[in-house]
């Protein structure tokens, strides 16, 4: 069984619990619907979660909403406006486009044979109109709705309020006066994914050599999109403060879509800031560079996530799973992942970040102990098996 492959990570007890929980709801059919099969965190989770659900006896399908550039331009706008308050809003053409594509997908997405339907994010939220009386529909929202643009949230709420329940990553992301029950389920990482699986030292070293990183000196790593909200320039400033005391290196690695003009501009700014320093490695990697990211995280002395604003920031859990303490900003889901002083540190300024980096470079005992706690924290709270268990719990509670 696929689920058995997780026993080495979580233990026999956890796997047995999942099987028993699944047995208690066997016979129901589940559908997941999102807007893309490849790329992005939601697709990555469903890619493993759906086979796992089938593996434990819950008949599960994954269908993808059909749309084109016109539709996704509108849903991207919705996404941005739900994330932050803005004077901008949806115009009538946007709303018509959204409704038109929702209607077109009524035919394409077959929801009828299923007892439970999970709709992921705002793009397919309008499919709720298809809900049959005995079905349970759950809206799984992966974005932070704590401070939305009110008019846009009111539009989405027209649909989301028709669901039987919703799911958010953390309590802080749930909008005020949510009219349906909101479960709190953080996202997860898959220990079998290329990004997280064990790598032997030869594979790790090969990646470091490929980019010219020195294996013998401390390495500070930040993995993130090239986005100002990830504060890459702040990470460089922190590294420079550390560099006064330690001969260290910094890697900023990420990727961006070719059609993202802002990312390209941010990358230029980072390169300009790092110019002339051969110990700063700016790596713009292809989106499928999972093994490279894995190797960089594993070879880091310290991992930094100096975001100004963050969704959940699952990259923190990825590093922690590799036994790395993370020094992160006190924002978004990072607050939920780091336990200050035990699995890493919160840092509230560039100077504070530098101070914590130095502390961990000097104190090898602390580094090792925190790294061990960090891995344990992920094993217990942020692996896909926990995510699966939570979904089964939601289904079971809704079927009662």
């Amino acid at each position: 069984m696929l689920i058995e492959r997780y026993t080495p990570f979580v233990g026999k007890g956890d796997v047995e619990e999942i099987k028993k929980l699944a047995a208690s709801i066997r016979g129901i059919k589940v559908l997941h619907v999102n807007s893309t099969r490849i790329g992005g965190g939601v697709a990555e989770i469903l890619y493993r979660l759906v086979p796992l659900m089938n593996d434990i006896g819950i008949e599960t399908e994954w269908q993808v909403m059909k749309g084109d550039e016109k539709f996704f331009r509108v849903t991207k706008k919705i996404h941005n406006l739900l994330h932050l308050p803005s004077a901008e809003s949806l115009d009538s053409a946007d709303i018509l486009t959204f409704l038109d594509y929702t209607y077109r997908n009524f035919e394409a997405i077959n929801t009828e044979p299923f007892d439970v339907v999970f709709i992921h994010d705002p793009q397919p939220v309008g499919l709720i109109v298809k809900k049959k009386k005995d079905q349970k529909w759950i809206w799984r929202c992966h974005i932070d709705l704590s401070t939305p643009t009110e008019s846009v949230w009111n539009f989405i709420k027209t649909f989301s309020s028709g669901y039987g329940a919703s799911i958010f990553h953390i309590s802080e992301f749930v909008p005020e006066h949510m009219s349906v029950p909101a479960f709190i389920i953080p996202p997860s990482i898959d220990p079998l994914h290329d990004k997280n699986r064990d790598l032997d030292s030869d594979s790790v070293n090969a990646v470091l050599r490929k980019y010219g990183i020195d294996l013998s000196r401390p390495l500070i790593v930040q993995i993130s999109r090239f986005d100002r909200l990830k504060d890459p320039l702040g990470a460089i400033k922190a590294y420079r403060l550390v560099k006064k005391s330690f001969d260290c290196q910094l890697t900023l690695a990420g990727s961006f879509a070719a059609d993202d003009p802002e990312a390209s501009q941010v990358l230029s700014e980072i390169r300009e800031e790092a110019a002339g320093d051969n110990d700063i490695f700016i790596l713009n990697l292809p989106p499928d560079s999972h093994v490279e990211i894995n190797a960089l995280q594993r070879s880091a002395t310290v991992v930094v996530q100096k975001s100004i604003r963050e969704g959940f920031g699952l990259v923190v859990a990825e590093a922690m799973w590799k036994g790395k303490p993370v020094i992160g900003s006190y924002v978004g889901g990072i607050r939920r992942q780091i336990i200050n002083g035990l699995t890493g540190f919160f840092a509230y300024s560039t100077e504070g970040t530098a101070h914590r980096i130095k502390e961990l470079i000097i104190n090898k005992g602390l580094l090792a102990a925190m790294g061990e706690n960090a891995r344990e924290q992920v094993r217990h709270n942020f692996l896909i098996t926990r995510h699966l268990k939570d979904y089964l719990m939601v289904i079971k509670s809704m079927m009662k």
Partner: protein
Amino acid sequence: MDKFVFKSELWVAQNTGVKVNTLDGFRRAISEVDEDTLYYHFYRSIFEFHFLIPTYSNDFAFWFSDNGLPILAEKMSIIDPLVYTSLGDVRAELSRVLQEAGEDRRRFKTPFYFQRAIRDVVELGMEADSVSSFIEMFESIGVYCLFYHLVTARLRLGESTNDFSQWLRAAGREETAKEIESLNPWMFSLYDMKAFILDVLKRKRNVD
């Protein structure tokens, strides 16, 4: 003698919609929220972070600490879960401590989001009919099984004991039962607790 049926407790968190950022609001919420909410915040430190020995023993204490009230944080943290056998008693004690804290009109920077535990219990398909089979099965259990039988059993049983001790006592193993009862899950990780219990069980396999 009845068989010992190994079970696990599973949770998923649900937002209650109750969010407070003043002492008065918190006080009111503590008196009004349902017991599954108290349960969640009181036991989460063990359910989610059992492998760490954190600074404070429950969510309430962490919140007061984050908002610059270390004395109240400490008083919340030392409410000893082993003393109480009902959530009603826990609520009364929380309210008493909050009442003693007096007035504080500040609006705290970090709100407290009340969540409830949606709980379920699953049987693991292991039933022990002798101390030997109990020990054998105990070796394979996970932490949520331990949590159910050891940590929160007292709320179910309404007395200061746990499922393991109760069954072992019925099996004539009084000393073993007592030794397990003496454990404090807030002082050790559940991994440590499991190792300790296993050691006691094996040491006393043929005695008592």
